[in-house]
């Protein structure tokens, strides 16, 4: 882990410790339940590993990408405040999302739901310390926060997603990630950079949502969730073909080709913004996506070979489907 990642990890751990301490001052029992939930949603039970996970949207790194080309002395206290605010904001959104999605730990999440109010207040406080009520930043804050909330709610209600809905709704669920980005621009006196950076955040949100659509297609199908990828599968599959067969035949390549096209545009934008950290990050994401593409394509082809072998094999039982027996 690089020194900057280690520093970020220790700052995340400090925020989570403070969540435990703040809640624990009122109710040690409740603090334990909230920390249990935080550990449960974190890979390996490590909150820092969660935020630094390769598949996590870079909500904590984005302000550093904005800062890098500005040639200013970083305001460390401001950045610590942003990290605290963003971690709280993430937990606020995640708790509500998990309840809306019917997460497997729903009982715990419903019981700790009132704590979302504490997360929200800490999320806002991080900015209130730096921007007075009449500051231009709050207009952006309000617009992005509303876009994030309305997109998440509308996305959960969609029954079919075409590109228009994907662009207008699904890909906007990441809008709140633009808030610390806009705050960084305003804090360092570069408000004119806000539109370009928000375009980039939206582009990255579009890319990340599509990755989610492709790699989680199985989970989405199991809960009957509509996504752009699955909806496109329903539209593009041949009459006699299942969505899985479409994914094998062309859907996987279609999805990853789209990701590549969007990534090329993101890389052009990152170069224009002059952030080498962002360019390095995007190069890593592009390589990672190529690995996932290859894993999915080759693995599904191998599963098709297995289906062929089993199709030729003699069944010893006829009363239930082979799929049911394997599962």
């Amino acid at each position, binding site marked *: 882990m690089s020194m900057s990642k280690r520093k970020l990890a220790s700052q995340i751990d400090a925020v989570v410790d403070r969540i435990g301490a703040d809640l624990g001052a009122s109710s040690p029992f409740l603090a334990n339940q909230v920390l249990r939930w935080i550990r449960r949603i974190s890979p390996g039970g490590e909150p820092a590993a*969660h935020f630094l996970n390769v598949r996590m949207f870079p909500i904590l790194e984005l302000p550093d990408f904005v800062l890098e080309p500005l040639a200013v002395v970083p305001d460390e206290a401001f950045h610590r405040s942003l990290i605290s605010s963003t971690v709280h904001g993430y937990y606020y959104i995640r708790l509500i999302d998990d309840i809306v999605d019917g997460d497997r730990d729903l009982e715990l999440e419903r019981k700790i739901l009132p704590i979302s109010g504490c997360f929200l207040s800490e999320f806002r406080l991080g900015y209130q310390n730096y921007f007075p009520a009449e500051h231009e930043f709050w207009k952006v804050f309000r617009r992005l926060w509303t876009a994030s909330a309305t997109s998440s709610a509308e996305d959960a209600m969609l029954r079919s997603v075409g590109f228009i809905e994907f662009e207008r709704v699904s890909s906007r669920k*990441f809008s709140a990630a633009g808030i610390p980005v806009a705050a960084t621009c305003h804090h360092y006196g570069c408000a004119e950079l806000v539109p370009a950076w928000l375009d980039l955040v939206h582009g990255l949100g579009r890319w990340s949502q599509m990755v989610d659509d492709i*790699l989680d297609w199985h989970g989405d199908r199991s809960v009957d969730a509509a996504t752009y990828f699955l909806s496109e599968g329903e539209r593009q599959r041949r009459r006699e073909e299942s969505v899985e067969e479409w994914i094998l035949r062309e859907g996987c390549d279609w999805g990853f080709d789209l990701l590549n096209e969007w990534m090329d545009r993101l890389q052009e934008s990152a170069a224009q913004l002059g952030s080498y950290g962002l360019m390095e990050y995007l190069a890593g994401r592009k390589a990672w996506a190529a690995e996932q593409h290859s894993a999915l394509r080759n*693995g599904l082809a*191998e599963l098709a070979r297995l289906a062929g072998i089993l*199709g030729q094999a003699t069944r*010893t039982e006829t009363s239930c*489907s082979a799929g049911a027996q*394997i*599962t």
Partner: protein
Amino acid sequence: MAGTPITFGELVNACLNNPGFFHELQDNPAQAITQAGYEATPMVIASLKNLDYNAIRKVFRACDPTTAPMC
């Protein structure tokens, strides 16, 4: 051949819901295939041994919801 052959969709679902089956299929194909309701003929076993199980494992690693994009 008797019964309905497994579809590709069913097999993909089996892969993602029960990755353990594929470990068993690689380690002990005769037992795994018999338990799944198929006749373990030498030809079937030989074909199963030729599969690239590492490639199959990568599918369920790529699609593992515990490493999903988390935002």
